């Protein structure tokens, strides 16, 4: 195996390791499910030998971002990275559209309603009905636009009467 292929293979392995890190607040989701790992690459010149990672926060004030950055660094070191530097990038802004289909399925199974696709830009957002992740009923009610984490809202089901969280579409 030549060095170029070796480097590419190890980078693939490092990318997989970063993407497999679990979200600290919604541990059923990996960072790949959320779509928040922007880039994993080897640094060049004076950064040679350092693995550079770019992450994007779901919300600018999300306190999990710093925990995630630490977890990614630990995971990459465990996967053999000699040194890691994590950078938070805001642009382009993260959107719930980047959550994978697999991620949506895991959310539902975990009891969190997955986000709808897209958000009406500009207009005052309509509160669209969300399907209960427990019984599947569409007869649900939004209790509060804000939930247990910045990315969720709080709902309750009129049929099974269970409260549940819903991932906000942004």
């Amino acid at each position, binding site marked *: 195996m030549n060095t170029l292929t070796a480097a590419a293979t190890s980078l693939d392995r490092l990318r997989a390791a970063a993407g497999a890190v679990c979200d600290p607040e919604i541990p059923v989701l990996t960072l790949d499910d959320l779509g928040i790992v922007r880039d994993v690459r080897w640094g060049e010149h004076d950064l040679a030998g350092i693995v550079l990672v770019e992450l994007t926060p779901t919300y600018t004030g999300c306190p999990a971002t710093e925990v995630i950055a630490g977890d990614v660094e630990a995971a990459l070191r465990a996967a053999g990275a000699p040194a890691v530097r994590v950078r938070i990038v805001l*642009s382009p802004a993260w959107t719930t559209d980047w959550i994978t289909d697999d991620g949506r399925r895991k959310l539902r199974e975990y009891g969190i309603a997955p986000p709808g696709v897209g958000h009406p830009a500009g207009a*005052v957002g309509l509160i669209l009905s969300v399907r209960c992740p427990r019984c599947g009923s569409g007869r649900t009610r939004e209790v509060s636009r804000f939930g247990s984490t910045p990315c969720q809202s709080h709902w309750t089901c009129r049929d099974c009467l269970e409260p549940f969280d819903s991932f906000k579409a942004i």
Partner: protein
Amino acid sequence: MTAPIAPTVTDTAALAGYLIGLGDDALVLSHRLAEWITRAPQLEEDIALANISLDLLGQARTLLAHAGEVEGRGRSEDDLAYLRSERELRNLQIVEIGNGDFAVTIARQLIFSAYQYELYAALLGSADERLAALAAKAVKEVAYHRDHAIAWTLRLGDGTALSHGRMQAALEATWPYVEEIFDPSDIADQLAALPGIAVDPATLRPAWTQCVRPVLTEATLTEPQPNRRSRGGRRGLHTEYLGHLLAEMQSLHRAHPGVSW
């Protein structure tokens, strides 16, 4: 063909100043909203106001960190947040006034989030890349803040006689701080130095009115015609409220310089 003009020292100072103004708005309002935690009328509102506060804190951190780097004097986001005194803060007065009752907080949220939404929407096109990137992120967050304020304004205004009365009184208490938001005179130098980067707040007024006025009408509320107005927050003039807020917000950092957690 003209070569791109390198930013002058004045531009750097103007940009840092502009960013600090916007950052201070987010920082101070974030702190005010956090004061509601454990005191809101419902548990859901504790959580909602805390979430909005957290979004604003994230925006403040990004803006102040950027300002510190642009300024080039080695000040970090923490230095700017915790080590400036009252007269050095550049926030609009509306964000510093006391929370009042829940209606006053909602009235302020309506006024401010409707303004901040238009501001960030306009800053999407800013030539300063980091500012445009923050705006793209923050405009989505603020859309939720604005929805929250609108929903409560409707519910309180078009609710019982008591809730209507208190919501109307809240508008009367907060409307004197509206003019200052859209008054560009205190940042005229920054606006002149930062074409394509900064946004003249006066240009946001029509869209703001278009958002707020129908909400008041639907909520059966009357738009106040205040006979006084605030001014000067952007040049460091503040109400008596700000000093008390800073004393609480900064005491830990000042007692333990350089502390981190």
